[in-house]
Every structure is written in C-alpha cells, then in structure tokens.
C-alpha cells in the first residue's frame, strides 16, 4: 500500500514464523522504502512472551529503518495476556482497526512516544 507495508497475521504465530516475519519485514522495508508498517493481529488469539517481545523488536527495527509500526486489531484476551505477562509494549503504537491504523500512519506520525491524540490537534491546525 504505497509507502506503507501491511502485514496480516492469519495463523497462530510460532516462534520460527515470527522470526521469519521479522526478517522478511526488515528486508521489505528497505526494498520498498516503506515509511510505515501496519501489523494486523486481529486473527491472533494466542500470544506468549516471545511473540510479545517479537512485536516489540519488529517495532524497534522498523524505527531504526525510519518506518513507524502500528499494531492493530488486538483482541481483548490478547491485550490482557500481554499486560499480565508484564509486556505492555511501550514502544508500539496501537489502533483498534486497520482503518484507524492507516489513518494514524497517513497523518504523518512522528516521534514514537507521541500518541495519536497528542498529534490530533496539531494536524488540524496545520
């Protein structure tokens, strides 16, 4: 999708699959000059600490390659599990749906610490 990469996780992530995803994604970011990565995990209903960490790693790597990562469509059960595991994924930006995630990427987000709400008013002013 233009300068954005869209990753949809359709099956349960094994550790190896997650590693493969990480490698593929970094290569594609470089090849496509992508500026944003959208990871849709709405089909994922089981996570463990490894997958949680993997998501964090992918976000950090993309950032190094100057691409923002937005994780969208996380299920309530998955969110609770990650929080209980102590993995609140502070570096990752999240959105409820693919649409909102794309909106987030399009609005030219900058600085991963800022939330979409903090950027919201700025966008309207500009």
């Amino acid at each position: 999708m233009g300068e954005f990469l869209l990753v949809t996780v359709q099956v349960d992530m094994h550790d190896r699959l997650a590693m493969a995803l990480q490698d593929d994604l970094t290569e594609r970011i470089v090849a496509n000059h992508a500026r944003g990565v959208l990871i849709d995990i709405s089909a994922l209903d089981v996570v463990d600490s490894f997958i949680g960490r993997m998501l964090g790693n992918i976000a950090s790597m993309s950032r190094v390659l100057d691409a923002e990562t937005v994780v969208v469509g996380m299920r309530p059960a998955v969110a609770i599990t990650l929080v209980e595991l102590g993995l609140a994924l502070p570096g990752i930006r999240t959105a409820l749906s693919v649409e909102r995630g794309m909106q987030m990427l399009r609005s030219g987000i900058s600085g991963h610490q800022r939330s979409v709400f903090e950027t919201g008013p700025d966008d309207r002013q500009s």
Partner: protein
Amino acid sequence: MEKSKIDTNSNSLAALLAGNEAAVLERWRSSLVSDNGSRRSGIREADLNRQSGEFLAAFRAAIERDAAGNIQGSAWDQTRGILSDISREQASQGATASEVATFIFTLKEALFGLVQIEFADDPQRVAQEVWNVSRILDRLGLLTTDIALKNREETILRQQNEMLELSTPVVKLWGGILALPLIGTLDSERTQVVMESLLDEIVRTEAAIAIIDITGVPTVDTLVAQHLLKTVAAARLMGAECIISGIRPQIASTIVHLGVDLGGVSTKATLADAFAMALLRSGLGVCRIEAPRKSSSGQ
C-alpha cells in the same frame, strides 16, 4: 428373631429399628412437636412429620447396610441426600443451623428409650448401643451444620459475583468516548472483570478514549495503582487512550507519598475535566447555542 440378631452385635440396631420403626417415629415426632414450640422459627407440623418419616426410613436402610455408621460411605448416600434436602428446606423456613442439628439430636431420645427397653437385662449392652446410636447421630447432626455452612457460603459467593457484575458498568459518554466509573476497592479479581468489560466495550463501540473515574474508590495504594495501570496498558494495546479522573486531594497526596508512578497516563481531577479533554482530543467541543430571543431579553 431379635434374639438371633443380638449375637451379631453389629446389626442389632438395624433389627431393632426394623421391628419398631413406627413406635420410634411416633416418639420422635411427639418430642419434635413439643420441641418445636420452643423454636424461634415455627416449622409446620406436617413438614416435620414428613421429614422425620423420610429421614428415619433412609436412616434404617443405611444402618442395615452399614452398622458401623461410616456416614461418608456409599451406604449413607441416600441418607445424606435426604438430610441435606431437609436441612435446606428448614433453613429456607428460617431455621438456624443449631435448630436443624437439634432435629437430628431429638431422634436420640426415641432410640435410647427403645434400646433401654430392649436390653433392660443387660446394662452393658445398653451402654454400648447408646454409645453407638449417639455416635452416628452426632455425626449426622454435625453434617447438617456443615450443609448449613456450605449453603451460606454459596449464597455469599453468589452475591459476590452479582456485586462484581453490578459494580463495573461501562458507559458511553459520546461516540468513541467511554467512561468507567469505579466504585469500591479494586482487588485483582475485580480488576480482571473491569478490564474485560472495558476491553469488550472498546471493541464493541470502537471507542478511542476511555475515562476511568475513581471518585468511588476509597483508597488508592500501590496495589490499586498497579491494577489501574494494568487496565490502562491493556486499553492502550487495544488502541484506546485512557484518562484517569476523579482523583481526590487525599488520594493525590497518597499517590505521591507512596511514590507511585502513574507514568504517562493523563489524569484529571474531575470527570467533567476528563470529558472535556476527551472531546478536545477527538476534535470536538462544547459550545453555547444561540439563546432564543425571548429568554435573552429576560436576562
């Protein structure tokens, strides 16, 4: 016939009962009825008669199969079942646990009398049988107490669950803005329920902002703060931002004194402030509508 059974020590009681069930029942009922007058809760005589009949029949059947009186054994299954029904029935009519136990203990009088008459020429035997009857009935009496306690615990648990559900409403304030007014202490179990209902509601309403109002939370210690932060983190993972509101001055000072780090969570003193902030973040605002001419002239 009874003479032959007396030698097989263990089954004498069963044989005695088999021969004199009607008499025992009669005597038990009369002492139950006279006892009933002194109870605070009047259980109807017809009920008492039916319950005593049922119980004695089951008791006799059980003791025939297991004279040792191992009331946890399979021989006593039916007796235990009937006893718990009776116990439940009486409790629902307002009987206390001790009153239900007394119901069983009253049977002793009738049985002791029977034993006494039957073995009048053998005092040692009387003592032995009395001891035997007493032991079994004591166990059954205690069982009713256990049943009463269990019933009460079930009630408490059910009410606790109802309270959990009652106390965690998630309300929609505006399109995309949810509020979660928390009332009462937050323990880990409640946090779980709160978190689940909030996250489900976020998915359902596609909310982007959730306001957690803690006006009704009496104290915020490190544990409660941790639970709050967990909820906030989970909502964030779902793509919704959280605002904590309703922080009273004492709670603010407690939080600071405890060294609790509320991190990057936005906090507001009142729900109104939080709502205004949420509207602003969604690009909305509240404005005064043009006052109608009539009322403006009156001002």
